[in-house]
């Protein structure tokens, strides 16, 4: 952990920018792993929902619309985390939050009333079909966004 005492003589090289109160890039270091996971989920969700909507949308319009919605959320989260700046950070935060709410809601629904919900979205059964990555990822993402936020948090 970097020592937070300020050196009055001037700049200290090689100290992460977060230590000086500025936000760090979310796609750096461990963040690259998170972005990679989000990208995989984004591609998986987009292709799955594209196939569902193109071939059999009328069978389960709600579940498939939800699939498409989840796909969009993953794409937005990936971009938000991969890019720099306060707008990207805000986008990523919203996307991760929506994702967490989504996986919890859909997960609970699919456990409570499985008959009403064909097992067809990435969020079904809390993401069971994707080794629960959809459940863990938003938590890790939000934690990472918080960690890289920097000192004052004013950069939202």
């Amino acid at each position, binding site marked *: 952990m970097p020592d937070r005492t300020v050196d009055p003589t001037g700049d200290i090289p090689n100290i992460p920018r977060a230590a000086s109160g500025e936000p760090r890039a979310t796609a750096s270091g461990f963040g690259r792993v998170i972005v*990679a996971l989000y990208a995989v989920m984004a591609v998986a969700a987009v292709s799955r929902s594209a196939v569902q909507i193109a071939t059999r949308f009328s069978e389960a319009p709600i579940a498939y619309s939800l699939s498409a919605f989840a796909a969009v959320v993953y794409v937005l989260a990936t971009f938000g985390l991969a890019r720099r700046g306060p707008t990207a950070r805000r986008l990523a935060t919203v996307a991760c939050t929506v994702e967490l709410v989504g996986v919890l809601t859909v997960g609970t629904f699919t456990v409570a009333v499985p008959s009403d919900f064909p097992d067809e979205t990435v969020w079904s059964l809390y993401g069971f079909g994707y080794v629960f990555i959809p459940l863990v990822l938003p938590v890790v993402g939000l934690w990472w966004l918080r960690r890289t936020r920097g000192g004052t948090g004013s950069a939202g």
Partner: protein
Amino acid sequence: MVALVVGGLVVFVLGGVLAAMGRTPGDGVLVLSALLELLVLVQVVWAAAALVRGDRPAELLVFVLYLLGTVVVMPLVVFWSLAERTRWGHLVVAIGGLTVMAMVARLWQMWQAHRA
């Protein structure tokens, strides 16, 4: 197919171990990823030949999408891990291996279902 699953597993485990050791990605990862990609390409050729012969799984579109997906995973992963050389790059490659493994397993499933 078995070779591919094992290959994916090897990349996953080795990537994880190298990341844990704190090593930065270098030639080793590149060679390993290239080998896995080679296996993937062999599978694509094999599957394409089967499809052309008229041996087709029910969900042909999904099958082809998965097939194309397996081809792009490792190149993207290697690009992403070499763009910033930290030990996390190894973990990214490990995820790539895991992804290929999962996709091959799913392809295998579709193929078996079609055979049954």
